[in-house]
């Protein structure tokens, strides 16, 4: 009898695996979707100084959550996709009127200034980040943009 059960084991295991496969095929499952651990959480505590040579002030966590929706965009002059998305962000900020805060990520101030000079500057505040900020925000690469609600939570 136990021997019989042993012979049944492969097919039973397969049925279990097939069950998982069936679940995996359900249409509302998107295997490509990557959840962000930051969503619905308040921003980390930070205080970013302004980029030297730019007139925009830096900003800190205290500046967020003042009852106004804000976009925060990580960018860098050396980042090619940032250049590509720059016109879109500019248009977005202009059309919606939502303030766009920039976090200049691991960049030389003069390069950042030249870059904004060349492409235009849609940011109302720009903080300089030496790399730590990106880690705290859970940013794995630039560009990345966050939308914060009036209470300073990431949405």
């Amino acid at each position, binding site marked *: 009898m136990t021997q019989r059960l042993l012979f049944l084991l*492969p097919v039973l295991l397969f049925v279990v695996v097939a069950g998982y496969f069936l679940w995996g*095929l359900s249409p509302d499952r998107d295997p490509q979707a990557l959840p962000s651990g930051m969503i619905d959480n308040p921003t980390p505590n930070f205080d970013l100084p302004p980029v030297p040579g730019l007139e925009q002030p830096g900003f800190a966590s205290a500046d967020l959550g003042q009852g106004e929706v804000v976009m925060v965009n990580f960018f860098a002059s050396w980042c090619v996709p940032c250049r590509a998305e720059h016109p879109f962000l500019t248009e977005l900020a202009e059309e919606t009127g939502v303030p766009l805060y920039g976090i200049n990520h691991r960049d030389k101030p003069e390069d950042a200034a030249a870059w904004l000079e060349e492409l235009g500057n849609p940011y109302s505040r720009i903080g300089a980040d030496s790399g730590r900020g990106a880690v705290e925000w859970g940013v794995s690469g630039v560009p990345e943009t966050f939308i914060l609600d009036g209470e300073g939570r990431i949405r």
Partner: protein
Amino acid sequence: MIAELGHFALILALLTAVIQGSLPMLGAARGRADWMAVAQPAAILQVVLVALSFAALTYVYVVSDFTVINVVENSHSAKPMLYKVTGVWGNHEGSMLLWILILALFGSMVALFGGNLPPSLKARVLGVQAWIGIGFLLFTLLTSNPFLRVFPAPPDGRDLNPLLQDPGLAFHPPLLYAGYVGFSMAFSFAIAALIEGKLDAAWARWVRPWTLLAWAFLTAGIALGSWWAYYELGWGGWWFWDPVENVSFMPWLLGTALLHSAIVVEKRDALKVWTVLLAILTFSLSLMGTFIVRSGLLTSVHAFATDPERGFFILVLLLITIGGSLLLFALRAPVLKPGGLFSPISREGGMVINNLFLAAACATVFLGTLYPLFLEAVNGSKVSVGPPFFNATFVPLMVPLIFLMALGPLMPWKRADLAGVFSRLKLAGLGAVIAAGITLYLEQGGPILAVAAMGLVGWLFVASLVEWSDRIKLFRAPLGDSWRRARNLPRSAHGMTLAHAGMAVAAAGMIGASVWNLEEVRNLQPGESMEVAGYSYRLDGVEQLEGPNYLADRASLTVTRDGEEIAVLTPEKRLYPVQNMPTTEAGIHTTWVSDLYAVIGDSDGRGGWTVRIFHEPLVPWIWLGSLLMVLGGFVSLSDRRLRIGAPNRQAKAKAAPEPESGPGGHPAAAE
């Protein structure tokens, strides 16, 4: 018109498969020879019809008939002819047709060369082959028809994914499928044996060559795919433990186990139930691979365009094929008479250990591959399982396997004397010390585990040669005598030596590539150079050029060592405008001990270019070793006694005193 002919031929092939899958099966059950005899012409008609259909699809690709959706989506009039042809299987629908073609080819080979099979076994094997064929023909016709038309026809096609426009990947799918589908033979024989309730040494003699053939193709297919990833993706790596790679590797692991356990069935009439299970599981994993690649079940860096509806269809197919065959196994396997017991220290004991390690390794890869899916189903969290998992689980299983691989061939059947085996391996021990010593000297230290690992592959390499040279009495008898012995040695013995030594060579390459690989990225102005691992790479310049359907920046890098010019590398960065997709073409120079590997990145707009240099020690050995393994497989296959359809032993022994049919007349990978 041609496309409709192809479609029509495919429908006829389905009808033929239905006949091939029903009448001979019933005939075998009722003992009607005339019904059973239908299988043979049906299998041949089947391959003719499928080949016709495949030829029709190839034709519409060659003439760029853009009224066929499949051609529109995967071809372009400016594409080079080679890729127009290989584009036929560079997409989901066409590759399914290739799958079916290879399946039909294997079936027809049994029909043509299976003259000496017992008629009922032959009818059942062909019947099972036809069942698999019905499933895949239905799948192709209902969900993945490559012959659909589009109206109005667009002026030109959307081109084939540029990554696939490459000679390495052009031939990767046919080889891989020949491997996957080749295991269907072992599967069909296993199912037929379960239905018959009879499994003997003759059965194993039949299954072995098919398994060996499939194994050799799969080895070649995997190696080619890995080589392609290495030079085309420009990451400097050759294996990424990506789900799509893993699903091809799992059947390889179990197929290798099957190859060895079938020898035990043949020689000792033991391990029958296990061998049948292995045959079923090996092909099941091949099917599962097809499913995972095409259903979008797992995220992978390279997979087919996915479609859940197709995934559902294949899942049903899997449930019937795998679930059905495993159920049959549960019901019928107890009927198979168990073979004799044997001593753990013997050739067959060695094979069991080989099987245990390979099966465990396969289970690890299976878990690692599907774990993200299991976890997501249980608690919704997403993880990816990468190299750290496999390094921690798979590699430790390979270490004892490689160590024992050296012992197995030296052990006689039934009962072996371990002390005697080790005394014959003194030279292998020396080989291990020398390999470790060379590594230590060349690398000035390095991780001690890697040095030990190199010693281990040295051990296996020398042990494989020791076994072979002992058999021909190399250096112990006059050379002429050894030569005569070598010629008399069964080809399968040569094949085994080649394959085992090839494994050692490939393993050395894998260790070297993962431990001593160096990578440097720099921004270089033309004329500037960078130094990696003692080689100096000077960027001479970057020129723009225009290919048939792409634009490229081609850099030219002069590699020098101590002022002496070694090579000029010309890595390219291509842009395929039709798909607006960039690809990299690495510039590689091999010294056979290492690869000098260069990739060109973006221009900084001020005359400088990002240059990425990899120093890849021993990587060429991976391909060299794989080639030796494939060669070993084919050399074994050429053995008269293993040849497909070889008549039974007694008949042949009387037939002719051929030089290669040595005394004893045993297929000799097994001796």
